[in-house]
């Protein structure tokens, strides 16, 4: 069917016949360049997905490092927690180092009601703890804040009758058999309540990709409210998204050639003798245009303002006194509010415009985006916090009207927000 239709068109036939065997010899320079390049191994450029993945890894890596660093920084045993490992000095009569390197076997002098460990009882010593050990003394006091004052490296032989008081397990608090975790050590007084509502103002610079005019910079700002319940949160709000872009149009016009005085009307009046009529000619300027069409591409800079309404769900996977890390994912609806010309429109001069066609399609009135990001909330006080949220957005439809050569855009951005918690 299509073949028949094509045969019916003389222009198609002409070009199909005329260009079927068209050849053009490539320049020698390009041939040499090709022969040079064809021997080199392929270097695949880093795609944007790889870069986005790399960025995500860096964020996760930095976040993990921060978490670990904070965990280690908070771990030194404070006065309030040292009692958990405290050994009463009255129990200790003497301590002798033991040659064993991986563990200690100590003899005890049993006092009071403490159970008697068997001579072979092993007491594990945390590897990170360092205990100053006197080398020759057979009896020495143990400072009250010292934890597990057990010699670890001494090699003095221990007589079997020597009694070395070793803290029995009963001296440790029965309800806390292991060292407390970091989060339990922290004072939770500055953490927010179990559920709460917060209000905030945000600003998000966003870089869009897959748009017609290349990458686009977008400014997003607005206010938002978040309902937190436990580790989960729901956020919504209202904001403005402002971006600029070049709108290209194709103007078809007839070129202006000149102006001549065309006759408009003639008025005849009698002369004084009334023997003859005197004509008075009235003319008007008439422009003359070439019949050929000229095509002009012109750009108009426009500013687009969108109303944005997000609905974002969150899950906080880590929290301490001053920092909360969490995932955020949700949808954002954008409505085109206003389009404003920032540059002057095309001036055709005296040429006659025949048609104006949009090359760049108009912006779409509404679109939806899916977003996901990693949220870091830095708590300044119980009420105030600052959030930093690198995120990625995928646009479900193009920002342009359909039926054009447009891809679905995506973008990366960094949301910054100042939040007040109630």
């Amino acid at each position: 069917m299509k073949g028949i239709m094509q045969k019916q068109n003389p222009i198609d036939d002409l070009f199909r016949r005329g260009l079927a065997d068209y050849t053009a010899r490539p320049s020698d320079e390009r041939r040499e360049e090709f022969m040079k390049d064809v021997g080199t191994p392929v270097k695949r450029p880093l795609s944007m997905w790889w870069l986005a993945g790399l960025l995500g890894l860096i964020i996760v890596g930095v976040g993990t490092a921060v978490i670990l660093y904070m965990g280690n920084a908070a771990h030194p045993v404070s006065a309030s927690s040292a009692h958990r490992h405290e050994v009463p000095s009255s129990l200790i009569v003497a301590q002798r180092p033991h040659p064993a390197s991986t563990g200690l076997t100590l003899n005890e002098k049993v006092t009071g009601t403490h159970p008697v460990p068997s001579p072979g009882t092993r007491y594990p010593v945390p590897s990170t703890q360092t205990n100053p050990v006197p080398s020759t003394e057979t009896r020495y006091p143990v400072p009250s804040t010292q934890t597990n004052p057990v010699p670890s490296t001494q090699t003095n032989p221990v007589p079997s009758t020597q009694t070395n008081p070793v803290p029995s397990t009963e001296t440790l608090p029965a309800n806390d058999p292991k060292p407390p975790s970091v989060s339990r050590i922290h004072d939770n007084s500055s953490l927010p309540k179990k559920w709460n509502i917060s209000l905030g103002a945000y600003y998000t610079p966003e870089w869009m990709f897959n748009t017609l005019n290349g990458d686009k910079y977008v400014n997003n700002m607005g206010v938002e409210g978040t309902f937190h319940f436990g580790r989960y949160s729901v956020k919504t709000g209202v904001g403005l998204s402002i971006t600029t872009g070049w709108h290209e149009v194709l103007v078809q016009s007839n070129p202006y050639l000149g102006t001549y005085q065309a006759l408009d009307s003639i008025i005849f009046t009698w002369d004084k003798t009334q023997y003859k009529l005197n004509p008075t000619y009235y003319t008007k300027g008439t422009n003359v245009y070439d019949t050929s069409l000229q095509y002009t591409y012109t750009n108009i800079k426009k500013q687009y303002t969108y109303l944005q309404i997000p609905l974002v769900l969150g899950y906080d996977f880590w929290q301490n006194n001053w920092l909360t890390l969490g995932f955020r994912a949700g949808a954002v609806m954008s409505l085109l509010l206003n389009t404003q010309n920032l540059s002057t429109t095309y001036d055709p001069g005296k040429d006659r415009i025949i048609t104006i066609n949009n090359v760049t399609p108009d912006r779409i009135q509404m679109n939806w985006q899916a977003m996901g990001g990693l949220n870091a909330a830095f708590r300044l006080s119980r009420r105030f916090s600052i959030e930093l949220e690198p995120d990625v957005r995928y646009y479900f439809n193009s920002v342009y009207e359909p039926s054009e050569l447009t891809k679905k855009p995506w973008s990366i951005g960094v949301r910054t927000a100042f939040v007040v918690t109630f």
Partner: protein
Amino acid sequence: MIFSRRNTEAKSLDKAAVGVLYDKHAPWLLGVCLRYTGNREDAEDVLHDGFMKIIRSIESFREKQTGSLEAWMRRIMVNTALNYIRDHKKEKMFTVLDPLLESLHETDDHDDFGRCDLSSDQLMDLVCALPAGYRTVFNLYVMEDYTHKEIGELLGISENTSKSQLSKARQFLRKRLFEYQNERNYAKAESNR
């Protein structure tokens, strides 16, 4: 043989064979590229990229044995050209046109250009003078025998947009051909005097 197998794991490129393949096919492939890009510089860029793809994937062609080598190379080159045009968006692709206006233009496509004696270079110049959107659709429809539906899917545009682009391209070319014929008739008349 583009690749000479020394063993099962390592392949080395036979540059001489590549050179022969290039010399044989590059001229007509450059013609294909020129039709899409509209200028020689871009066409040579596309030819370079497209031929690299051909060389790097020619082994898979041998295995698949799908269609002729020329048709396969042509497909690769057309796709490369389309990607190139898409990535270099200095010239925008498609105009939004009034379908009613286009239907009116479609009606007078019955001129006889059968005796038109334009050379292939002159015809190519006319194609290159087309705006990018017109040129792309015209090439795909007329030269590559794609349907409007296929063009729409390939370029991400609607079928109607493809039709209107083709119609405008034909209108543009018809006007230029008439101008050429008029000039030629005028020159003949002048010479007869």
